[in-house]
């Protein structure tokens, strides 16, 4: 088949361009992703009001395996994953895991919900400006839920957009603890 080399050439072209397209796509996605150390520092440097109205610096949890979960009461998928977090806080809290919820919401709505479902970890409340903070941590489209896991050295291990499956989270946490 003497036309085969030409076919290969075409194929090579297609793969080349598809590859280039993919690289550009990757480069665009990683574009705004800050490096894990600075992002970790930024998260730990944050200070947000708790349900008590007083500001709580995240610095106080440095040295723990910190799971920062951005959520809201109006966000159904967020509510889906919170019971799992409550369970894990009980289970892995003694080993140094610390969940912190940052609600893009108002205290009036967060408080009854947290009480009803029995959230056993600190919940801080930020308005939409807390979304800018999440955006800086790699949440490019500003969606909820968004969860950042920070190791004991203050380095970001993962930043997950969307629901974090319990089995994945467990796999992630165990080696860090």
């Amino acid at each position: 088949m003497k036309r085969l080399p030409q076919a290969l050439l075409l194929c090579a072209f297609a793969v080349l361009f598809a590859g280039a397209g993919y690289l550009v796509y990757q480069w665009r996605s990683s574009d705004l992703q800050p490096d894990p150390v600075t992002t970790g520092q930024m998260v730990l440097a944050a200070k947000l009001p708790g349900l008590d109205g007083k500001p709580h610096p995240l610095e106080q949890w440095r040295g723990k395996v910190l799971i920062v979960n951005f959520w809201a009461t109006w966000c159904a998928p967020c509510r889906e994953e919170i019971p799992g977090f409550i369970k894990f806080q009980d289970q892995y809290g003694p080993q140094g895991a610390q969940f912190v919820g940052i609600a893009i919401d108002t205290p009036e709505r967060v408080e009854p919900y947290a009480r009803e479902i029995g959230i056993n970890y600190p919940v801080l409340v930020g308005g939409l400006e807390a979304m800018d903070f999440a955006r800086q941590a790699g949440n490019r489209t500003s969606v909820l839920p968004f969860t950042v896991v920070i190791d004991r050295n203050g380095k970001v291990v993962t930043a997950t957009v969307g629901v974090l499956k319990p089995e994945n989270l467990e796999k992630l946490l165990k080696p860090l603890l």
Partner: protein
Amino acid sequence: MFIRLILLILCLLAGAARAAEPELLEPEKAFKFSARLLAPGELEVRYEIAPGYYMYRDKFRFGAEPSSITLDASKLPPGKVKKDEFFGDVQIYRGDMRFVLPLALADDRVSRFVLKAESQGCADLGVCYPPQEQKAEIRLAAFSPAAPAAAVSPFAQPAPGAASRGESTSEHTMIAELFKGGFWALVISFFGFGLLLALTPCMFPMIPILSGILVPHGEHLTHARGFALSLVYVLGMAITYALAGVAAGLLGTMLSSALQNPWVLSSFAALFVVLALSMFGLYELQLPSALQSKLAVTSNKLHGGHFASVFAMGVLSAVIVGPCVAAPLAGALLYISQSGNVVLGGSALFAMALGMGVPLVVVGASAGTLLPKAGPWMETVKRFFGVVLLGVAIYLVSPLLPAVAHMLAWAALLIAFAVYLHAIDPLPHGAPGYRKLFKSIGVIALLAGVALLIGALAGGRDILQPLAGLRSAVAPAAAAPKFQRVNSLSELENAVRIGAGKPVMLDFYADWCVSCKEMERFTFADDEVRARLSQMVILQADVTANLDEHKALLKRFELFGPPGIVFFDRAGTEIKGLRVIGFQSADKFAATLDLVLR
């Protein structure tokens, strides 16, 4: 020939199969907002909700500025009921959503107003977007009692910062609307739609294929035979589309979202680049001649085989042309997959492909007399097709490219096109008229390309107004007030010292910070605010690069990042209680500034 095409298709499929994980859309793309005046007192609000996204009916809030305009949002159309584990039954909207809000005007002198629409939505992937406020500027002037005839041309312009409106009617919503008609009306509309598509560059790759089918018959080609051959070819194409329609019915929404996948888009763009390069003569694709020999051999042997291969060519052509008609196809497939109406979907797409094939059948029935005769002028036409194909490739991948790359690609294409048209070669004395015309077109393309290039390099990101960036650099006074840049603590201290006696404002800014941009557009540009800012030293720290100095600066003020505005009194010490974090409207911000200036 076949092996080559099949290989090509296989490697495209291999690319598509390793698709990247789905990317979430920016909220303004997922929920594309626009509004226009339908008639006096009737405002049409439209959300083009991307496939796989939905909005909550009870989360919409509408308001207008000035408040002399009132909107009645009490009668939103019913949505689809979604059972939610936590919220119970909630009503949601999907797809292209329009509703009419009655509008009451307390003051006739108002000629325009700003519509503020608050909404909230989620993606099926399991994420939600925070409530967002979008704005559109609505002009009422078109409906003043003096000019009732203007009612046919209502328009709305998005305010700066609002989601851009894009094309007034995108192809795929047009199709979704068509489906509301009856079965036959629908099939006929699709046929007409196919006819329209036949006029687009999408059909270019088919012309050499068809001529390859017809030419071997040379003088012996009868009208009937030409008609039969081209009809078989078109049927092959049409049946492929019909199958795609049926598959969509069975596969669900997967297919239409697959068409938006970056892998698929890049692969299709790559195919168009390959086709374009052959148009430029970089290598010979030899589609017609390869087919010629193949067909000559088979048609001499037996007729059935001949028709079968022509049919197969039609099938393959449908695959080649598919990406080009992806936009209307996506709309149709989306509907079919949602309705699950397989028969309707298949028939509609079949009719569309038949419409696309009509010009080809006409060429066939003319027994090749309508086929363009080969000649040197064909080279020019081929190059033109090549440019158009490259344009299609850029268009296909444009959603994946950053604005800069998009603009540069167009600039490169336009400039290369101009050079091909001899735009920079001198015209020989007594050149024929068509060469003068070509040169004129070339010069226009050259200028447009250069404008895009300069615009892109100067920081312009709007492909329709590439040089807008330069304009604002010439007259900055029209926009937000000019900030003095500070990059480190020492620069800040210097600036505060030099500005002694005046209050100082320090604004933290970053390119990714949405509220910073809103502040710039809506608040800092406000006359009241600017009047107050002119009495102050205004500094801005752009911390986009996140250098160590930037971090130190943020840390000094215990900020984790922008947005954040800090004020210093005339003595140069920070006024602690007055920090502004996040967006503040012009009125509120002016009040804050008054406190600083006091």
